[in-house]
């Protein structure tokens, strides 16, 4: 932890913005630069920023490894759904549906797989940051 008011103030603004950008990057990943992996790393770097400014106390209360396990379950489930419906494992498709306010949605099922990747990357990065940070010399 770096005890600096400047860093803390900057972080207060930077973390939400970085997380928001990471979500955008995640969502647009199928068509524009981005994707689950890179968005996860970006969210992880936001987490690192938070740790540096505010210390471990808040972040260590969360069991981050659970996040990566949830991500793994999501990605496996995405692959398993087509399998149980008679296709091969990881046979992705495209969902087209209509949401009232947002209008027509065009979502490849690979996006759910990508969500798993996002959560795993974020969860694993934060686990390692927190655990290394908790080490005492």
């Amino acid at each position, binding site marked *: 932890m770096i005890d600096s008011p400047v860093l803390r103030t900057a972080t207060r603004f930077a973390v939400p913005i970085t997380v928001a950008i990471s979500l955008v990057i995640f969502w647009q990943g199928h068509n524009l*630069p981005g994707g689950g992996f890179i968005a996860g790393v970006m969210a992880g770097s936001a987490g690192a920023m938070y740790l540096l400014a505010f210390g471990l106390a808040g972040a260590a209360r969360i069991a981050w490894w659970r996040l*990566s396990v949830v991500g*793994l379950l999501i990605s496996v489930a995405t692959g398993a759904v087509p399998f149980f419906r008679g296709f091969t494992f990881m046979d992705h498709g495209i969902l087209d549906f209509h949401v009232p306010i947002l209008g027509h949605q065009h979502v490849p099922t690979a996006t759910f797989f990508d969500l798993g990747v996002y959560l795993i990357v974020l969860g694993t990065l934060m686990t390692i940051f927190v655990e290394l940070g908790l*080490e005492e010399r």
Partner: protein
Amino acid sequence: MNGPDLLLPVIIGLPFVAAALALAGGRVVGRRIGVVMPLAAATSFLLALRLAGLPSAHEPPLFRYDWIPALQIGFTLRGDGFGLFFALLISGIGVLVGVYALAYLSDLGGSRLGRFYAALAAFMGAMLGVALADDLILLFVFWEMTSLTSFVLIGFWYEQDIARRGAVTALLVTALGGLAMAAGFVLVGQVTGTYSISGLVASPDLRQTLGSSPLFLPALLLVLLGAFTKSAQVPFHFWLPGAMVAPTPVSTYLHAATMVKAGIFLLGRMLPIFGTADAWFPIVTTIGLATLCLGNYRAFRETDLKGLLAFTTVGALGLVTMVYGLRAADLDALQILSHATYKGALFLVVGIVEHAAHSRNLRDIGGLRTRLPITFTIAVLAGLSMAGWPPLLGFLAKESLYAELLDNAALGTLTGLRPAVIAAVVVANAFLFGATCKLIFGVFFGPLRVAARDGDHHDDGESPGLWLPPAILVLLALGLGLGGLTSTTEQLVSRFSSDPHAHLHVGLIPTHLGPLVLSMVTTALGVALYVGRGVVDGWQRSLAVLPSMQSVWDHGIEGVTAFATGYSRRWQNGSLHQYFSVILASTTGLTVFALLRGGLVFRATPMGFDNLTWYGLALAGLLLGAVYAVVTATTRLAAALALTAVGFMVALVFVVYRSPDIVLTQILIETVSTIFVLLVLYFMPVFRPHVPSAGVRAWNRGLSVAVGLVMFGLIVLCTSPGFRETRNLGQDYLARSLTDAGGQNAVNVIIVDFRAMDTQGEITVLVVVGLCIFGLLRARRSVSE
């Protein structure tokens, strides 16, 4: 498929449902969970009985489901006479053992009892699967399930070191054989193109194809290895006595009545397929006879009751193996049924004796005749069946065996073979007789002796839950023996034989002189052995000079462990320098090897300098400068920062090539990994310039140069015109990205769609790494606290 066909999966499925219930429910409903497994067993038994009651001219019920059609593997179940015979045996004795275990494990709490019954029920389901499977691969799957569940059951008292060792040995031996058997099955499938057992048996053409294939003998030997390990045949017999550390109901169920008979069952299934082989008779008969002799001989020496029964079981299994070796398959159901009834009863009797006398060693106990009158009656009847006395089923079994030996065609092929085999079998049976006498007289006659009890055990005596199951088994042996007066027994065992044309003639009233004489000789010899047991014991002691197979096996396992440890110590020694050396050297070497083998040589690739730009040159210069800074850094921090600089320069290179995805990735990864490096550096000891020896420095230099050259060469090769034209996967991905995967960003589409399985593997590794770091650091901290 009609009604009876659909019963087959129900028979197998019920025990697994019971297992799940027992596992989940033990904690909730306590010891009452013990009724689930016997109930499932009873239902399976009744269903199997319903199938067995179908007219025998009827085509056997067949359940078919395409499991892995691409590999011709089907979830196919078939209820022929032999399969149903085993199913009835497994589920019927399952009921008895399930009831008995509830009384036997009277001190056990609900949760642990639930786990016990879950393993027992799952074992029963797997065993039923082995009995009814009509697909070789399916048979193998159920086979391995019996090995795994029996591992849990043998090691049930896992607090004891000896139980864990017995369980591991049994698992290793039977799993080893199971794998060999699987390899044999695959060979059969490769040669014939089918895994269907009934298909192979029914088609002379397929068997002809198999028989004339050069893979025939290897397949036969591998399958036999599976059967011999499972059924504890010489030289793999040792795991069975070792497995006697299991609770007595488990020993009864697995090691007398069912699991050890799986190998026998496999022989019965394979005889119609492999039986024509010349190798079948000598191998199977010799192994069977050797096992019969060794088992009964060793049983006579034992003073531990379960050990004694275990060795007689080894002997009995050898006997059935020998019967198959002689291709006398029509005898099998009779021999198996006879053994299952008396041996099951005797094991359960030993359990009662152990409860009452607090020991199962003949040295500590005796005279229990008056204290356990019902048990005594049961034991005498079962003992008479084991010794082969009328009017019990054991008598019919032994008479028909002797009749077969006197008449068998295969034994007539070599002069002197028949008398030798008959003599060996008679002597082995005499030892069995003697062992039976030792057991009955030792436990129940003489002055009353019980072991001093430790702790405050309440005396169970003879509760009906304990004596009823063995009583039923013994009554079965008696009833079927008396059934020899009419044609009931012979019809029954002929119906259930693996030989569909079996017409066995067994009667309680002897019709031929030969077998009767052999029986009398056996009895006389047996009595002599028992009377002279002091002398015989001395001989046996002086003959026991060879190392036991158990110690040979243990040494083998120790050797493997020592090798693995040494290998790990050598290569996983913690030296980062060595790891990198090995990785880099093998990468370079393999690349060069692959390029040379693949015929890819570095032709004079035209390298154009015409689109050289000033920013390209500047970037290259900066990169080189940063790399130089890494190499010459004197502190870790400086090296880490310089490395980060290299990373950002590389990101700039990708800007030049207009690859936004990679730029984004590169920059973020550099940022995050710099944080990591700084976090880790904090814990590293102070950097001390370490000067390696001249040899190591020369190696480092040579390796670095080689890696650089090969990498450079690879890049030149990949960018050369000819290479790009022949292998342009990128164009293909770009073309299909939008149409096939609905995404315009080909990089991401490759990651999450085209190569999703790779990504799945990578993220799984990532999760595991995260969990390992979490676990290791947490564990280390909790130790230091």
